């Protein structure tokens, strides 16, 4: 299985090299489809063999030799509860993305598809990497193809969009690189006999205790990079531009996969590596998340361009993810993970549908449409499902994620206030507003433009690529536990472990050695109260049982906590 994981990661890269020698455009398309399908099929055993009860460790681990000379930096990949679903989302979306660009890409076809495939290897690597340094490398590997995808095959303003996207992201990540080096040396001194290390297992070991002042700076450096990537308000300005200018496939990958790297990195690295700082700054991030939810929704409401509207709705949805993660309880984090998947599916579908409309009508302006439901009944149905999922209609996937996040933040001990949930809920109402309003203007009413009368409905290929997404939208909506169970145990363990280490570090800290601002930020007196208790308050327990239904894990938790 270890080998299989590596095959899944590198098969697309191999496919990209293969495309270099293929001359015919049609062959290029079929080869990329075949490669991405094969990747998806090969990744299924990884999901099926996954042991959901295993915590604190990754599965299918490959640990290579140190490759950076005398430093303990090594190739290390594996999957655990945090990454499993996102990994599968990536392999699942790839064939769909290839199909969605089947006829819309006409120039430099081989270049386009090889960029998509390289991007896929990078994305899979990001989710599977278990060494901070490897994570960084895979992440940058996704930036280069994205730069070209937007810049070469994008819309009119593509160059500005792609350069802004690239530089914006890189500034954050280069600062993170400095912090990463610092962490590597610190970890080396504390837990690895003085040898520089970025091994995830060592970085999260209880003996690795960063001082509170160091943690603050490092947390901010890492957080800044991830905030830009997610993007969290106010670092979002590159996103609408990049989304709008990118070709359909670029937007879909950006929304479904690339943005998840930021949120995933928060959950995987930011919170566990700097536990005290993460808890101390949780309210700040939650506020930014809530601002993002409402701001994204309000700006989406006034958009004239459908694609821009979907782009701003992304900001709103990702605000939910951030809020859920910084609620610091299992429900919130579970909601965040499933919301990442949901957002990938529903926003991905919306971008694909907008792309289909654009291909036919060469416009994305809401005003240019109207009444096209009569011409395109099949598309209308698909569009409706994706849109309702995006709003969060119960029974579809969006509801599950948003509901869990709202419950999680409502009960969060770390956040300590239900107002976050209240304001976030306003975002759901706004989402219903802008989505339904847009849908009504585009699809219903009288046909005001002659061109729209000639529109043809989507063809078999287009139906074929949308149907799988629709299936999952409904499946997650009806039986969320089929999916949430993969992350449940690991998330619970991770948060518990984070809290334990945070307590240990706070316990060891001496208040006399800390500057005044740090004393204000951190509670250095030993903490007794645990965030876990909140999970077992009555309402929350009901919610987690209702939403995820995994009573086994809950029972074990209760026993551990002596309840």
């Amino acid at each position: 299985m270890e080998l299989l994981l590596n095959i899944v990661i590198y098969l697309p890269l191999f496919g990209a090299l293969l495309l270099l020698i293929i001359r015919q455009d049609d062959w290029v398309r079929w080869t990329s489809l075949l490669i991405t399908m094969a990747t998806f099929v090969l990744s299924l055993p990884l999901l099926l063999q996954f042991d959901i009860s295993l915590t604190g460790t990754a599965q299918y681990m490959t640990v290579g030799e140190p490759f950076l000379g005398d430093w303990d930096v090594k190739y290390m990949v594996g999957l655990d509860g945090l990454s499993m679903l996102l990994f599968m989302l990536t392999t699942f979306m790839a064939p769909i993305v290839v199909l969605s660009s089947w006829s819309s890409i006409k120039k430099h076809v081989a270049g386009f598809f090889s960029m998509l495939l390289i991007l896929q290897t990078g994305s899979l690597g990001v989710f599977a990497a278990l060494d901070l340094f490897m994570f960084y490398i895979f992440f940058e590997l996704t930036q280069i193809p994205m730069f070209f995808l937007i810049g070469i095959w994008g819309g009119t303003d593509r160059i500005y969009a792609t350069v802004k996207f690239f530089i914006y992201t890189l500034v954050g990540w280069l600062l993170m690189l400095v912090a990463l080096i610092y962490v590597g040396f610190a970890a080396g001194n504390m837990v690895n006999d003085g040898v520089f290390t970025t091994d995830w297992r060592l970085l999260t070991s209880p003996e690795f205790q960063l001082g509170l002042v160091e943690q603050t700076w490092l947390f901010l450096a890492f957080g800044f990079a991830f905030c830009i990537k997610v993007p969290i308000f106010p670092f979002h300005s590159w996103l609408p531009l990049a989304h709008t200018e990118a070709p359909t496939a670029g937007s879909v990958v950006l929304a479904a996969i690339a943005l998840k790297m930021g949120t995933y990195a928060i959950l995987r690295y930011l919170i566990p590596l700097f536990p005290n700082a993460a808890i101390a700054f949780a309210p700040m991030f939650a506020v930014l998340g809530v601002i993002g939810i409402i701001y994204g929704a309000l700006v989406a409401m006034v958009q004239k361009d459908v694609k821009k509207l979907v782009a701003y709705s992304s900001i709103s949805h990702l605000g939910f993810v951030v809020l859920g993660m910084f609620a610091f309880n299992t429900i919130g984090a579970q909601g965040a993970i499933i919301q990442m998947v949901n957002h990938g599916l529903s926003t991905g579908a919306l971008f694909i549908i907008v792309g289909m409309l654009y291909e036919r009508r060469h416009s994305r302006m809401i005003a240019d449409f109207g009444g096209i439901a009569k011409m395109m009944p099949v598309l209308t149905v698909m569009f409706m499902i994706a849109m309702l999922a995006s709003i969060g209609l119960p029974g579809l996937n969006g509801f599950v994620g948003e509901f869990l996040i709202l419950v999680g933040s409502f009960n969060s001990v770390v956040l300590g206030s239900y107002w976050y949930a209240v304001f976030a809920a306003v975002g759901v109402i706004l989402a219903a507003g802008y989505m339904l309003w847009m849908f009504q203007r585009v699809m219903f009413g009288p046909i005001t433009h002659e061109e729209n009368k000639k529109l043809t409905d989507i063809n078999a290929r287009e139906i074929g690529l949308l149907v799988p997404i629709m299936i999952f939208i409904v499946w997650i909506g009806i039986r969320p536990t089929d999916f949430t169970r993969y992350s449940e145990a690991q998330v619970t363990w991770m948060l518990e472990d984070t809290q334990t280490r945070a307590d240990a570090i706070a316990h060891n800290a001496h208040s006399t050695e800390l500057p005044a601002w740090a004393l204000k930020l951190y509670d250095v007196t030993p903490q007794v109260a645990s965030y876990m208790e909140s999970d077992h308050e009555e309402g929350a327990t009901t919610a987690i049982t209702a939403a995820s239904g995994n009573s086994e894990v809950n029972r074990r938790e209760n026993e551990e906590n002596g309840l």
Partner: protein
Amino acid sequence: MESANELLTILPLIIIGAAGLFVMMLDAFTGSARLAYLATILFSAAALAVAVSDLFGPMGESFHGLITYGGTSSFGMVLVMTGTLFSVILSRDYLEKTGMHIAEVYSMILFAAFGMLLLVSSNNLVTLFLGIETMSISLYVLAGLVKNHKKSVEAALKYFLLGAFATGFLLYGIALLYGASGSTFLVDIAATEDKGMIYWAGVGLLLVGFFFKISAVPFHMWTPDVYQGAPTTITAFMATASKAAAFVAFILVLSRALPDARADWSDVIWLFALLTMVVGNILALVQDNVKRMLAYSSIAHAGYIMIGLAAGTDAAYSAVLFYLFAYTLMNIGAFGIVAYYEWHKGYDFTEVSNYSGLGFKQPIMGVLMSVFLFSMVGIPPFAGFIGKYRVFAAAVDEGLISLVIVGVLASAASVYYYLRVLVHLFMKESENGIVLSRPGTLYTASLLILAALTIFFGINPGVLTDLLGSFWTVQY
């Protein structure tokens, strides 16, 4: 036989020196640039092979301590000969197409390379001075190769005048250090007991001389003009081999002659590294000429490398050597592609707007340019990233965090001007209707090798970093 063994320690020097004379004679008797080119390639490859094998050989001193060999010096020789060999291979096509293909070019390149080899193996300030002068005088000639072009003549004259000044500083510094320590051997200078005014003045002037050669701000004024004015493949040679040689010599001087004074010069280099990175990157942002942009980018790279010198630990020096290697690979590559585009329209077809839409006309060249430029940005999985990473890491380990933060911000700014070239190559429509011919097989092959090495050492740097690290753990 002691003396014969000593000669073996400078074998690359002998090969290149003999080659220079041989090629000059070849030119005099046959006048064939082709032959000169072939001979140069053969001799350079031989010298490179010897230098590579010396890497794994012993380290030590010879010629009564005037020469140091093995380890860092051998690696310096590898850098110089890599730069020389690839520049020579790229030169032929370019110079033929632009009508400048004469045999003297090759003998001058070889003489310059001889100077560089001497420079990287100097264990004495006089040897060092001889190396620098041999190198510089040959480079002055090469810079003015395009006799009938104003820019080239300007470049040569400017380089010569400023270079002469810098040499003056350097020589004065050497003289003062000799006055203070009573010796020109690096080890003796390290042992100077009376560190008075004269000693510090000598160190200061020596640093100024080196700053000029590695084009650190504010001694960088000559770089853009010379890099732009000189024929492109010659620029590649100057930007890589001569710079690498100067840096290696700088490391030798810092680590051997001034190890105890590190606390003092470290702050000086800190300041100049900061200036160099900031000024180099900011000025590169506004350049419209690709060669000029690459010149400022090489200034910026000098700044990053100086971060490593400011850290001044063994780890930092070996990181700098790695960086220099990556720098050599990607710069020759980038200049090689600039030269390729340039020869289709003759000398000076190097405005960035000239490049619009060229990327897809010969995709292989476009892709290679992307590899080299992304490597310069410092993006994994290319060697440039590992170089930057190791230098920054060594500096962080020494507590130079603020300098490193300036470094990463500066390299974030650098993304803009590197990407600009790619934007023009791939994302703009071609306007000038230029038809690109296929480059020669050897030309393409050497660029491919450079790119392959850039990727190989980006993915698998351990082979080299282990070797470089070992130079510093062994006491010579």
